[in-house]
């Protein structure tokens, strides 16, 4: 079985972002970029499944500008066997990304597609569900545990839902999106970083994949959220209770 993992290049999670003065978006020039943390978890899970003998190959896919190759190299250094870079100059809506991934799945025929449940830049939480719909595959989103059954060709997945944990069983092929507690992604070791340099990354274009770009959402403007005005530091529990009672009227 082959596993396809989608990895997105995003502003590093530790960077304090700045909204551009012209309100067209968030400044990504000269800002540290990394693999989306949820995608790292997705890739880690795919690698563990391969290491357990359930899969033969892990293919990492990234869609975006030329620098996405760096993100793919990170994935290859973690242990992915090869990469696919779908070149795109502008950023796409999740629906277009889902169509690209569907098109790749039609060619690659993976048994599983792993994605992070959301990207920490646009926080959309849509792509996995949409790929599953386009392929007509079952989906298991927000996974915190994945157990494969090779004989039954199915996966039992614990999902983080509002009320606790939900367990589903999905037949393969399926789409799984990963939540934070699924695993702790590994660090790439130096020898593996060196090895990754010789692993293949295939370049593809939208024309190769025959995907039409859907742009039915326009970004009107991006602004900073209103700041909370800073409060006061109280010196004792008594003062705190007094403020909560007589100033804020909340207790």
């Amino acid at each position, binding site marked *: 079985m082959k596993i396809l993992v989608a990895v997105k290049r995003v*502003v590093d*999670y530790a960077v*304090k*972002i700045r909204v551009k003065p012209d309100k067209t978006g*968030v400044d990504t020039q000269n800002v540290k970029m990394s693999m989306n943390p949820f995608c790292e978890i997705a890739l880690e899970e795919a690698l563990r499944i391969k290491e357990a003998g359930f899969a033969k190959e892990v293919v990492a896919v990234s869609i975006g500008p030329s620098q996405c190759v760096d993100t793919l190299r990170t994935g290859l250094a973690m242990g992915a066997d090869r990469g696919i870079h779908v070149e795109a100059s502008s950023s796409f809506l999740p*629906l277009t990304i889902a169509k690209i991934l569907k098109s790749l799945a039609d060619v690659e025929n993976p048994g599983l597609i792993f994605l992070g449940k959301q990207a*920490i*830049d*646009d*926080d959309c*939480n*849509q792509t*996995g*569900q*949409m790929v599953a*719909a*386009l392929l007509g595959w*079952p*989906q*298991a*989103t*927000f996974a*915190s545990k994945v157990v494969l059954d090779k004989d039954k060709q199915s996966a*039992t997945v614990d999902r*983080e*839902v*509002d*009320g*606790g*944990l*939900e367990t*589903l*069983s*999905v*037949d393969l092929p*399926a789409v799984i999106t990963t939540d934070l*507690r699924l695993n702790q992604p590994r660090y790439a070791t130096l020898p593996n970083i060196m090895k990754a340099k010789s692993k293949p990354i295939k370049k593809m274009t939208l024309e190769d994949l025959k995907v039409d770009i859907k*742009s*039915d*959402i*326009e970004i*009107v*403007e*991006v*602004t900073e*959220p209103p700041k*909370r005005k800073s*409060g*006061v*530091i*109280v*010196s004792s*529990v*008594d003062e*705190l*209770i007094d403020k*909560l009672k007589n100033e*804020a009227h*909340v*207790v």
Partner: protein
Amino acid sequence: ISTLILAEHESGSIKPQTVSTVVAANHLGESSSVSLLLAGSGSSLQEAASQAASCHPSVSEVLVADSDRFEYPLAEPWANLVDFVRQQRDYSHILASSSSFGKNILPRVAALLDVSPVTDVVKILGSNEFIRPIYAGNALCRVRYTGAGPCVLTIRTTSFPVTPITESKKATISQIDLSKFKEDAVSRSRYVGQSTQDTERPDLGSARVVITGGRALKSVENFKMIEKLAEKLGGAVGATRAAVDAGYVPNDLQVGQTGKIVAPELYMAFGVSGAIQHLAGIKDSKVIVAVNKDADAPIFQVADYGLVGDLFEVIPELLEKLPEKK
């Protein structure tokens, strides 16, 4: 404007986040009609439908899909159901709350309809213009939907509070004819089970008071102090990602970018440093109180009242001195 809302219900009653979604639908424009779609099976579904009919005066119709196929909220049949209902009646908007339920199903619906959905709408400026947070709420993005198909939205319900309803009106309830509802011959997704925490405390997402603990609590035992304080104030218990990862409390108590978004009247954080991902989930709280040993903790920058001190001394003192709530 005609809106279809995918409703959530549990043990015979409609969930509060669905009522908030109805409130949001009212912002889409004048003379909008709102249909609630309830799926499930058996008597608790019919009970919920009857309650849904009078849950808000702007609900004009309650559609009921009663079938074993909808016994559990599996994304595959439910997304097909929304598509099925939409084919029979035209809707300009399809909404659900941004719960784990809505976020699981609605993007799948949108892909079936070949439209781009909008996640986590916090403000509605018109029938096709919305504001949603990006980068963990560190920026707000105003978007315009320009597609031809229905506009698909998930609603961040803390941004659309329900005001007390005085008017009583009962919407019509119709059963959906499912005889033509097609599904893959064999279901390829099965519900196995759910582990929920039985708790008497109010729901985290809609509680008036939320008491949160961070990693500084150090153990499951110590975390009980947070629970005691929550009980005393009639509030819900929350936790940071670090506290959940350390195993002090279950995952569904996590507050933040990827956990629950809360907007209580009073939010009290103990031993919480204030990572941006956590602050993203509490920003809309009315009053934020922070107690932390570290005077430089970022949480103090958003707190209305900060107290620099040891939570192991502060919490017992609060327990002793705070007035009792019913």
